[in-house]
């Protein structure tokens, strides 16, 4: 990725969404991933807020990549990122106060979400604006999808609902621990095992297919 070759929009976008999914593959941005995912709706909101910041900070940093001196690049990136975070924070405080209250400090903490920082450092600083935009969008949506999935699982077991709709049978006694810290860690761990297993099976399948073709 370090080579400044031309990158087209779609592969970069898909790379962020699936191949290098920030949550399941890169293990970035764990705090909000675990902190806010007690309900699917929170996951979506947090994911979209992060995507917004990611897209615009990637874009701006990419545009400024040849202007910012190397030595002060970290404070510079942080200022860029923090500005967008403050914007989305103020926006939510004004228009979605309830959601903002639920997500709490985590919105402010998007600043230190390592996904954004990592993408700025490893992608946007080396790539042209359009590709950076694609990367931000892909990574952001990848992040949104995975934390929504995590949040949905936790909501189903922890509250018996999904996006607020009752999905479990009426007699179901919600497993409260799923909404607490241990539930977050363990659910993510189990999901990660599943993702790894699926990936491995898929890899084996494709290898087998290759071998078949060769044969």
């Amino acid at each position, binding site marked *: 990725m370090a080579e400044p070759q031309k990158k087209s929009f779609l592969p970069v976008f898909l790379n962020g969404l699936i191949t290098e999914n920030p949550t399941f593959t890169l293990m970035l941005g764990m705090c909000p991933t675990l902190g806010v995912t007690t309900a699917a709706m929170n996951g979506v909101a947090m994911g979209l807020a992060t995507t917004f910041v990611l897209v615009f900070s990637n874009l701006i940093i990419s545009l400024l990549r040849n202007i910012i001196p190397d030595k002060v690049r970290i404070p510079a990136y942080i200022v860029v990122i923090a500005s967008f975070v403050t914007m989305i924070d103020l926006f939510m405080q004004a228009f979605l106060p309830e959601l903002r209250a639920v997500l709490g400090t985590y919105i402010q903490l998007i600043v230190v979400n390592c996904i954004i920082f990592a993408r700025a450092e490893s992608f946007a600083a080396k790539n042209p604006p359009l590709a950076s935009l694609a990367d931000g969008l892909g990574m952001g949506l990848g992040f949104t999808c995975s934390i929504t999935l995590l949040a949905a699982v936790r909501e189903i077991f922890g509250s018996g609902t999904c996006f607020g709709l009752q999905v479990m049978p009426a007699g179901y*006694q919600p*497993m*409260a*621990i*799923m909404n607490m810290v241990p539930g977050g860690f*363990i659910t993510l761990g189990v999901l990660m095992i599943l993702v790894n297993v699926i990936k491995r099976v898929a890899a084996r399948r494709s290898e087998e297919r290759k071998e078949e073709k060769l044969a």
Partner: protein
Amino acid sequence: MQKQLAITSCPHIRSRKTTQRIMQDVCIALAPAGIAGIVFFGARAAAIIAVSVITCVLTELVYEKMMGQRVTIGDWSAVVTGLLLAYNIPATAPLWIPMVGGVIAILLVKMLFGGIGSNFMNPALTARAVLFVSWGGIMGSYPVTRFMEQTADGLSGATPLAELARVFAGQATLAEGTGLWDLFIGNCPGVLGETCKLAILLGGVWLILRDVADWKIPVSMIGTVFVLYLLTSGFNFGLSLREVLSGGLLLGAFFMATDYATSPQSNLGRVIFGVGCGLIVFVIRAYANYPEGCSFAILFMNVVTPLIDRYTMPKCFGEVKQHG
């Protein structure tokens, strides 16, 4: 004659103690407490014990079959986990509680980490804590025994520990609470295996005599709780004694704090572990909002165990500094 001879490397004799025998000994030691539970809480207790044990053994069996590993249910450790889990559930709980608990204990806490000896937290206790946090209403309401004054819903108003907490806070006197004898033989509300202290002590003595459990952990743990209550209650001997005999302290100290995989191995480490458990039990009982601190105390010390082990391992005999 010569053909049958086998080459083995020394030592050529092995002690008769096996993992299986140790676990069977624990089961034997646990039997009195279970019987007492059935006597005090009725057939319902037996059903919970059965479901819990069967779930644990089946979970281990199915997991190992699925993973194509060697089946290890023959070592009886799943039975021990099942018994301990059941003993930590109130007899009024629905039967899906021990089922969920059994799966959590064996699958999540034990097998995922590599099976017996590899888990770093006590499976039964962890499962109990998860159940407790998830379904506090079910896990936290204790039935009265069959020999106590019956209540409308069969649940007791105040556990001995709650009574004692009020005594400790100076809001009640000892005389109002459960009698010492009732506490000792188990005629008091509680989870099904923890009430009969006589049975637990019998089992504990068996464990120590059979060289299964190390006395240092239970003694230092119970001793710490006793001494701390003595010191903080102005040397109220009766209160301190009742604190020791209430709740899950004895069951935890003898059967769960002594779990090999989750407690330190060196002598010094075991004393530190026991004192740590006792200290946390005291702090949670006296100051936290959970009425019973025993399981969380042991769990927390389980987590600290690798570090205790790291810093208390014996130095090699004759090791001098410059030989490092």
